């Protein structure tokens, strides 16, 4: 009995993530009870396939939010990356060059944001807002209309898939997304960089007094987020087989919502990258359930996500209140 109690106390840090997991399980159960074909492997596998780019965005966003910042530019950078990829491949540049290049585009924008935030002490909100406008405007300079992607290497990569256990379909974008999650998990929990990220979120002044490389880390989290957004754009291009300037509008809000639902506090310092993945899955499941329901109109998705956000935020508030 005492053992259980001690474990429960140890798990306090994981409580928000456990909450997210419970919601996820409840949603799966709800879907399973209401609809006949819901609990199939196909539906769950599609959840990952359809949300691979959002998982990557949410992972990058987690880094930024853990330091107490925010990145509003990810949706626009995703669009810029996918439009650039489509434009270059239409111009005949081989996919082997384009793929690394568009990811670097994201990193460069992230670096610019990081420099603005750290060196010029501009609030992250404004710096990333400027980056968002910049990237979105650049999209329309490159191509105002949708460009289809016909490059053979790219299409082959995008349509590659395998069946794990004979039934669970895994596409290349799912593999990439899971690899990003694994790398992020390693970075956050097993490197000095990761510990510094948590330390900055806990208290920037204290982190600096401890001699941690605050300046470098603060710039780097935006590079990580920008890189993730660039990669997300690539996955989105693979998903839609095209590049369109208006894709990813308001996707930064989905990413932030996923991170918050995943139990990361916006004040920074508390949260897990796996929680954010669960958050993305919760958002995806809501979408799936509303599709299965059939009679419900699409706007209910937004209302339900808003309501869920409210529940989580209030719960988090109660949790932090009890702790202090």
């Amino acid at each position, binding site marked *: 009995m005492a053992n259980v109690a001690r474990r429960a106390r140890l798990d306090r840090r994981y409580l928000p993530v456990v909450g997210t997991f419970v919601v996820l399980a409840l949603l799966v159960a709800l879907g399973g009870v209401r609809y006949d074909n819901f609990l199939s492997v196909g539906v769950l596998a599609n959840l990952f396939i359809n949300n691979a780019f959002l998982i990557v965005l949410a992972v990058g966003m987690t880094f930024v939010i853990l330091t107490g910042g925010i990145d509003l530019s990810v949706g626009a950078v995703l669009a810029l990356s996918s439009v650039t990829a489509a434009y270059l491949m239409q111009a005949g540049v081989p996919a082997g060059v384009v793929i690394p290049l568009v990811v670097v585009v994201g990193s460069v924008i992230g670096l610019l944001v990081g420099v603005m935030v750290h060196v010029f002490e501009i609030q992250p909100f404004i710096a990333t807002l400027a980056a968002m*406008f910049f990237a979105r405007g650049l999209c329309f300079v490159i191509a105002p209309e949708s460009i289809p992607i016909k490059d053979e290497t790219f299409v082959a990569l995008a349509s590659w898939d395998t069946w794990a256990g004979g039934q669970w379909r895994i596409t290349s974008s799912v593999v990439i997304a899971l690899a990003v999650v694994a790398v992020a998990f390693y970075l956050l929990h097993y490197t000095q960089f990761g510990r510094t990220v948590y330390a900055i979120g806990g208290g920037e002044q204290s982190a600096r007094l401890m001699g941690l490389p605050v300046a470098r880390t603060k710039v780097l989290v935006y590079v990580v987020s920008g890189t993730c957004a660039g990669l997300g754009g690539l996955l989105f291009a693979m998903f839609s087989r095209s590049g369109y300037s208006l894709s990813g509008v308001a996707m930064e809000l989905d990413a932030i919502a996923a991170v918050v639902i995943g139990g990361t506090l916006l004040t920074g310092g508390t949260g897990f990258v796996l929680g954010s993945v669960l958050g993305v899955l919760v958002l995806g499941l809501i979408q799936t359930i509303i599709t299965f329901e059939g009679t419900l109109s699409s706007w*209910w998705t937004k209302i339900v996500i*808003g309501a869920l956000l409210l529940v989580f935020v209030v719960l988090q508030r109660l949790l932090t209140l009890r702790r202090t």
Partner: protein
Amino acid sequence: MSATAPTPAPAASGRLGAVVRHRLFWPVTALVALLVVNTVSRPSFLSVSVLDGHLYGSPVDILRNCAPLMLVALGMTLVIATRGIDLSVGAVVAIAGAVALSFIATSPDPGSPATVLVAVGLALGLSLVLGVWNGFLVAVVGVQPIIATLILMTAGRGIAMLITQGQITTVTSAPFKTLGAGFWLGLPVATLIAFGVFGLVALLTRRTALGVLVEAVGINPSASRLAGVRARTIVWTVFALSGLFSGLAGLILASNVMAADANNAGLFIELDAILAVVIGGTSLAGGKFSLSGTFVGVLIIATLSLTVVNLGISPLVTPLFKALVVVAVTLVQSPVARRKLAARPRRRTSSGSPSGSSTSKAVA
């Protein structure tokens, strides 16, 4: 103001230095630069003529087009001054338009002033309730403002679509059209409303203690509460006002096109409003606000949108220019640039004294 106080300008740099360091110097410079670009590309840009008893010309267009943003940015300034932020204004804009037009469309007599008055009252009432809801989450539950308003931002457009049933509601109602497209005494009604509300709030905050109380809450909520300021009531009030003003902006926007588009009405207006506030020199860290700065910021954004069209560039590229203006204005206003500007005359007069803040920054 805060930057000039600790370092009195030496007589040598004189009045010019004081002008350059005034907090409105860079925003006004940006606005003038935009107007100059326009006038060079089209010399008749600044001319105003009288047509059908109305004033007519590009400056009047700017004043009319900026009315909704002016109202939203006004509420945003007050919210930001208390160290908050309101992301839900765009959703409130959509909801207000949806409610008013749905009511007018289903009423038996869309053209009667009474119907329009009830519709406007309903929309404004609901906007106020939404603002109060945000204020409740922030002031009572204690949720961070950015998240509290993110909830309504996400759900709000869904609610607006629920009201219009996913359709774009259109109506024909002469009294309602006056709100956005009408003229009174030769000036656009929308401009008169926005400027009137703006003047009223400026008067209330700067001629009474209200403005100082708002700033006190922004500097330190608990300290101001202990000093006897009703911090909770003030936070609640500014969010409620932000909702109300956004609702009014939504009515003007809906009346401009006589349609309620739940998806696109007021899309990104929260970002434009925050930009206008920041360009105007109000810090997102709260504690001080400048309504005149916001006024200039809104004019800059409205002029910029017109400039892009004027120069024959696709309006889709406007965000790029917005980004450039924002980066330019925020960089010259950033603490680092200000410190350098402030340090220059000091170094000339007393080279011996070490300037602590900038050197310690360089080490870190």
